[in-house]
């Protein structure tokens, strides 16, 4: 990698530490994605809940 010749397979091998490096990055990515997905799901739930409450009140009137 030191300027001379770049090979992807060498890059992914991480000098023999591929397992540790890629698991670290993979798990981090997973946690980050989870952190993005959860609030989105949460938001849908809240909106659904408020909508249901509005409908219920309209029915009662």
């Amino acid at each position, binding site marked *: 990698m030191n300027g001379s010749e770049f090979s992807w397979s060498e890059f992914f091998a*991480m000098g*023999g*530490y591929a397992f*540790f490096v890629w698991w*670290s*990055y993979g798990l981090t990515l997973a946690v980050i994605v989870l952190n993005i997905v959860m609030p989105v799901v*949460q938001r849908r739930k809240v909106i659904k809940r408020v*909508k249901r409450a509005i409908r219920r009140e309209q029915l009662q009137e």
Partner: protein
Amino acid sequence: MWAWIQKFSSPKYFYGMSAKLIPWFALSALLIALYGLYLGFFVAPPDYQQGESYRIIFIHVPAAWMSMFVYVVMAVSAAIGLIWQIRLADVIAASSAPIGASFTFIALVTGSLWGKPMWGTYWVWDARLTSELILLFLYFGYMALQASIEDQRMADKASGLLAIVGVVNIPIIHYSVEWWNTLHQGATVTKFDKPSIHIDMLIPLLLMALAFKLFYLAMVLVRARNEALYRDRNRRWVRELVEKL
């Protein structure tokens, strides 16, 4: 001044304002992270002792920094919520906890994965890893207390006080763990001697730290918006807003 704070911290105003900020934070977090990773993987040279494995540093250290930073933010905003009764501060504190716990988890997992090639085992009772583990417990305690009190105001105040107690305790815990560690781990061979870090490694590290911070800002706003909606679910502005969706 007070009126300004009142206006700015009203959930309705916050909801609108934060919508404009989130894309900027999220986008800059992504771009900076990509650039940081590029520098970290393709420009920074391998470490002379640890080879390529040190590249875990670019997520491990920023995550560890963030885990502590978020706890302090949480405690400070909890204190603001407790003292000045600003509801938005309670919302920020409550929204920070899961993100902080995530960063702590990342720091623990990557630390352990980095530790395997360095120490030979996945877990060593190293001072920093142990402190992170205790920090994770502190986050869990905060979240559990927040979740188990029905009354929202009471839950905010009680868990806020716990966060403040935690922040007073963190230095004590940290230093006693460090002291304990020097006693028990003295003989462990560690490759983590602190050489002055190479500038090509430092820049991506700082970039990643910045990216993590921006990511936190974006996510805490997203979560706080949800909280604001949920807590004001019976107020008019939420009703009007939801009906438009």
